């Protein structure tokens, strides 16, 4: 990564966090236990907090969150994918595979920001790094439990991993080796198989998204677009 964080980088990271926050919020009131419900809501809140700092660093956060169309978003595809095998599905094993992949990448990106020469970006990175460390640890603990749990829990977490793995290439562009150094040991310890590297879907950073982002944005933006500036 370059010394000075560019606006494009900050926007990409901000969009990753914003879209991830919206995705994770789908778990609120539906998680397997009350404690997990609170945990996922808190992680979503952290993601939203990071998104607000990053988007405010490049422009007007509300304009950026609510007034852009799909093709103007710069999040990686992984962030927008459903948290289960199909649209509208919510699968916990799948979600933990997603969170492991995402939070390991965010931790590295934020660490790089924190060490960069742009003062504002460094402050945001230093703040977000601490929270990402918790997210990664949360995902890791669940990967170990689910991977080492029942046949069913292992099957489902592996299914999520297999389904999401291809999207990890776009997610980890430029940080792949460091990312693998975090993720691979978790998979090994959890007794999970590291999927093969085959197809590499991408394009999110250039504004080419899946249809899943359209549905997500429709839900996230509808109120603001119908009632601009609405507050409650």
């Amino acid at each position: 990564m370059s010394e000075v964080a560019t606006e494009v980088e900050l926007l990409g990271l901000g969009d990753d966090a914003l879209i991830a926050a919206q995705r994770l919020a789908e778990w609120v009131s539906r998680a397997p236990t009350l404690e997990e419900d609170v945990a996922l809501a808190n992680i979503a809140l952290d993601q939203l907090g990071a998104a607000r700092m990053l988007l405010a660093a490049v422009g007007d956060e509300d304009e950026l969150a609510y007034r852009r169309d799909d093709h103007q978003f710069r999040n990686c595809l992984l962030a927008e994918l459903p948290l289960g095998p199909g649209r509208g599905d919510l699968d916990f094993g799948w979600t933990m595979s997603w969170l492991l992949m995402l939070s390991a990448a965010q931790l590295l990106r934020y660490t790089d920001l924190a060490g960069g020469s742009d003062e504002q970006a460094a402050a945001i990175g230093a703040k977000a790094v601490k929270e990402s460390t918790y997210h990664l640890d949360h995902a890791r603990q669940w990967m170990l439990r689910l991977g080492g749990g029942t046949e069913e829990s292992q099957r489902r977490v592996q299914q999520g991993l297999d389904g999401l793995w291809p999207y990890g290439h776009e997610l980890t562009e430029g940080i792949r080796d460091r990312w693998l150094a975090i993720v691979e040991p978790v998979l090994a310890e959890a007794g999970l198989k590291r999927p093969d590297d085959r197809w590499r879907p991408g394009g999110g950073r250039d504004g080419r998204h899946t249809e899943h982002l359209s549905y997500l944005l429709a839900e996230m933006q509808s109120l603001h677009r119908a009632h601009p500036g609405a507050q409650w």
Partner: protein
Amino acid sequence: MTATRADAAAIAGAVPDPELRVVTIGELGIVRGAEQAEDGHVVVTITPTYSGCPAMDAIRDDIRSALAAAGYADVEVKTVLSPAWSTDMITESGWAALERTGIAAPGPSGTPTCPRCGHQGRPTPVLQISRYASTPCQSLWSCRSCLEPFNAIKKL
């Protein structure tokens, strides 16, 4: 009454945290300071505990009302991120107030001491039930000595 700069910082610092009412935002290390210009304009600087902390708006409002009540008409609340907030910024009196309400400190090893019975987790464990609790900055624990659940501030 003539108010001084130190007064403004003290008044802002004495505002109770909207979520953890037993401690002030000064004790939590959220208030970084206050500056008053010649023309009376006061700038209070605060820092968020967690970046997504939903209490920040309430904190800003509470600071403005507290200072308005003390005669400061022109108050601006500025948020800074650096240096990032950490649990080390909580003051001794802050920790004491938290502990009195049953919220434990993270403990040097990461395992808190039970605030109800003082049990330190050996040989009977103090178990972490969830690393997230009623606020983003707390985790949920269960003491296997007195069998009570309690919250602890997460090390950050």
